[in-house]
């Protein structure tokens, strides 16, 4: 890996840190990346399926998951893991991600992870060849390609510090705040940076100066390097060794901060947790001297660092870097209150899932109501056998006579002088677990039995334990000998046109068992519709999870609602035509059993 990140690099962001994620997307938009740099968010306590963010002036949705495993499975190409967990959980979150695998680098922002855990985590990552940036860091950046979270600060500062496109410097620091400062100094005195890493302020960090600098040595875009070290630790000596042994040949400019520490005893902690000198070798002054002796460019003080950068940069005589095109993020943006993903009325002609209405409305288009349902309900173009099935279902459930409770309610309401819509919704409001709900229930329970490979007998037992009659089984008068022709029609259609009907096949074996107990315990029309819908979705390639979601969100019931609306409207219009008076239920039909209320 000569380069830490590219313009295609994508990350999984653990914790929905909205401002940091927005900063990344602003950067992406500014540098005109093709894809957002955050592919998924892991938010263990959120049930949201996505989070909205701005992408330039517009909004986009980034998928959100409860677990890292689910996020990685959905976005396998995202090979950077940005761990924004607290110091209490950061270790576990990192270890889990390392075990899931498929990440090339991970950044950990938490400060103060227990040292032993940090060491363990770093060693484990190293063994798995995963580059760890942090803990206790603001991150890393490859200008013009990918930036982690808040590094570089605001988008205005990023452009001012030339972090929007690759320069020639490889920058490594411990401190995150000074990383930004140095980017600015490098922009003023040279041509910006090619790759930069703030390795983190804790005593035990994953990748150290030398790891990053050896990679930068291999990266042709890096022409020279700047190292900003600190009092404490011995990491700078590994760099000195690499310079001496010729592993690092590019010019290096370096400075260790914390020269003041020599005036105070160890009771004063300067800067980060890692910044505490044990012995002379770990003092800033000693390290600065050793680096200078090894041929590294070391200024006289931090104040002189800009001058030194200018000097080294000028001596390299590099060609000027062309300024790439940039997009400008608007400074005022308003988040949208509503999201629509099915239709769009902004153009010349309104569209259903991308199709102009005129392209499906008239008969010569060859499209029917089933096609409209597939576009507006499922945002997919279903094949003809499926749209025909949908239409068959709608036609089959359209009406079941005036006696059923929904139609009865609609009629009573219409007779009370209410309008079509009022009467209709009265009927519709009756639809639920007992009226029309068998479609949902049949799909749910038969699918459950089939998924769990229950034999028909086991399924019956299971339902008995649940204390529920099997939804979709049983008819008032119909039996195997006197079949329901609507059911037969649906089954014949499925047999002729469905690629396969595994759930129906299973349901038929259940039916054999139930009808052997009682003649009229047949698969009824609700059951057949629910079961065949599952078979349809399976054949269309939906995952079991998708189908379970259709069931739980009430999609099956929606077919019943849609179809039965036709019938209800018919009954309401019928009442209007007949001009029947207000209905009053005969008292003779009511059992009155009213006791005098007891005093309590």
């Amino acid at each position, binding site marked *: 890996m000569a380069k830490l990140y590219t313009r295609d690099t994508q990350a999984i962001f653990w914790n929905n840190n909205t401002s940091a994620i927005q900063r990344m997307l602003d950067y992406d938009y500014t540098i005109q990346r093709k894809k957002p740099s955050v592919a998924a968010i892991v938010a263990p306590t959120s049930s949201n399926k996505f989070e909205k963010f701005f992408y330039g002036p517009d909004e986009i949705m980034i998928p959100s998951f409860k677990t890292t495993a689910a996020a990685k499975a959905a976005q396998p190409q995202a090979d950077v893991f940005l761990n924004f967990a607290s110091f209490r959980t950061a270790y576990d979150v990192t270890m889990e991600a390392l075990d899931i695998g498929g990440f090339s680098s991970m950044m950990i922002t938490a400060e103060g992870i227990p040292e032993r855990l940090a060491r*363990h985590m770093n060693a484990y990552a190293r063994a798995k060849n995963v580059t760890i940036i942090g803990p206790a860091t603001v991150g890393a950046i490859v200008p013009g390609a990918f930036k982690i979270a808040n590094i570089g600060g605001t988008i205005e500062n990023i452009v001012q510090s030339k972090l929007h496109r690759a320069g020639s410097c490889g920058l490594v620091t411990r401190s995150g705040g000074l990383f930004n400062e140095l980017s600015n*100094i490098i922009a003023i005195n040279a041509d910006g940076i090619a790759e930069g890493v703030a390795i983190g302020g804790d005593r035990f960090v994953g990748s150290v100066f030398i790891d990053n600098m050896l990679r930068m040595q291999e990266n042709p875009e890096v022409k020279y390097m700047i190292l900003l070290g600190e009092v404490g630790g011995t990491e700078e000596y590994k760099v000195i060794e690499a310079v001496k042994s010729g592993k690092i040949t590019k010019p290096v400019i370096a400075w260790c901060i914390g020269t003041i520490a020599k*005036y105070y005893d160890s009771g004063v902690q300067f800067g980060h947790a890692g910044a505490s000198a044990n012995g002379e070798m770990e003092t800033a002054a000693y390290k600065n001297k050793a680096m200078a002796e090894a041929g590294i460019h070391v200024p006289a003080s931090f*104040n002189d660092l800009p001058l030194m950068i200018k000097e080294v940069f000028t001596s390299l005589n590099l060609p000027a870097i062309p300024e790439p095109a940039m997009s400008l993020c608007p400074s005022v943006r308003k988040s949208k209150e509503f999201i629509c993903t099915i239709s769009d009325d902004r153009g010349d002609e309104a569209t259903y899932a991308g199709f102009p209405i005129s392209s499906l409305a008239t008969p010569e288009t060859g499209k029917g109501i089933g096609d409209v349902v597939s576009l507006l309900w499922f945002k997919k173009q279903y094949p003809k056998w499926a749209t025909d099935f949908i239409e068959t279902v709608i036609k089959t459930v359209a009406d079941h006579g005036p006696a059923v409770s929904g139609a009865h309610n609609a009629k009573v309401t219409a007779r009370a002088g209410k309008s079509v819509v009022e009467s209709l919704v009265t009927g519709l409001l009756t639809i639920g677990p007992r009226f029309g709900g068998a479609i949902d229930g049949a799909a749910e329970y038969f699918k459950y039995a089939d998924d769990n490979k229950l034999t028909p007998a086991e399924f019956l037992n299971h339902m008995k334990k649940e204390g529920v009659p099997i939804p979709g089984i049983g008819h008032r008068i119909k039996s195997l000998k006197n079949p329901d022709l609507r059911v037969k029609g649906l089954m014949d259609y499925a047999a002729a046109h469905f690629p396969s009907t595994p759930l129906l096949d299973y349901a038929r074996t259940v039916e054999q068992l139930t009808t052997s107990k009682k003649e009229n315990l047949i698969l009824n029309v609700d059951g057949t519709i629910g079961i065949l819908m599952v078979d349809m979705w399976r054949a269309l390639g939906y995952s079991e999870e998708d189908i379970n979601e259709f069931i739980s969100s009430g999609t099956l019931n929606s077919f019943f609602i849609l179809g039965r609306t036709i019938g209800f409207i018919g009954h309401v219009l019928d009442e209007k035509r007949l001009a029947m008076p207000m209905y009053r239920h005969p008292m003779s039909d009511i059992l009155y059993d009213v006791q005098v209320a007891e005093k309590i």
Partner: protein
Amino acid sequence: MAQKAIREYDAKSILAKHWDKYFPNFTYAYETVMVQNGSELAAVAKDKKWLNEKALVAKPDMLFGKRGKNGLVLFKDAKPGDVSLAKAISWIDEKSSTEQSVYFSFDGDTPTGEAKTDMLTHFVVEPFTPHAQEEEYYISATCVGDDDVLYMSAEGGMEVEENWDKVIEVKFAITDTEDEIASKIRANIPKDVAEKDKEGFADFAIGFFKAYRELNFAYLEINPFVMQGSKIELLDMVAKLDDTAGFMMREQWGDVEYPTSFGMEEKSPEVLAIEDADSKSGASLKLTILKPEARIWTMVAGGGASVVYADTIADLAGIEDLANYGEYSGGPTTSETKFYADTLIDLMTRTPDKEGRPKILIIGGAIANFTDVAKTFTGIIQSFETYAEKMKEHKVKTYVRRGGPNYEKGLKDIKEAADRLGLYIEVYGPETHVTDIVRMALAK
């Protein structure tokens, strides 16, 4: 700082609490008490029979070593091993009543370097353990570089430093398994350990190292421990804990405190207040008072930048003029920043400069990544409003340099506020080199 020293008494208490887990084949009587004065010892003696029955040893427990050479270990009255409870009580009362001088390094028995003077406030009292010199052993563990290192020696007590070449060092990677650790330790038992103790020594060392790792010690030393068959005495211990592990070690460590070292100034109420605010905030607030009467005070954002400012002040003005070290970072709220600024400005306006010069307040910082500059500066401005009169009285000159989110507004606001309040201020943004305001302040 992640690694914090704890008292010997607490170190022994932690090991005793987990003794059977790590040292199932050994016994440790855990006869030790910590007291602050003689009457406290008399009081605990009512419950602890051994204090009345056994000969005692008493010594201060205040994070410093070389107590024997400093004459601060009571183990004899007329002859070694005859210290009674009454004697221990009177000795502790005597030693705790006046300031004591302690040397931290010795050349042979001659003290070198400077002594520190302070009151002795904590003592441990334990039974006198008669034992032979060859029963004394040394063991310690710490982390060096990326590895843990276990040090073992057959020479315990005061002799260990003089015989450091006989100390065996064994390195362990963090990934070493328990089996690997055990076999490395068994293969490296110092050859001078008595033949009869070799097996026991290895067993003890394995348990010791396991306790060091699992209980999140950063440093753990027993010098010496006495091994008499399966009976262990911990004569002297030094320990540091990795306090970042505190949240998961609450149960294991019990009620442990991190005392200030002997001779160090007690933390001032202001420093304690900042520490308290820091512990309650997601942001970072740090303050160390170096020289409260000095004229240059710094209020710098960011761990790295604060060090650079301190370096520059030391280079350009010398440390005599630097009053404090500290930093605020990680996006503190307006009120947290105000509290931090209040504390600093209050401290800097208590005494006038001896030479009558203006005081200097450096409000510095690098270009912030995510801290909202205008928001934090609002806190500083509120503090200016509270302390304007005092700041004028001490002729405080304020120099500001900052960049980052919303910096233009922050700089404009602080300039306007200072002008309105009649305070001297110079304000610079990211176009000025981060530490250049130090040079400017000193040039005037």
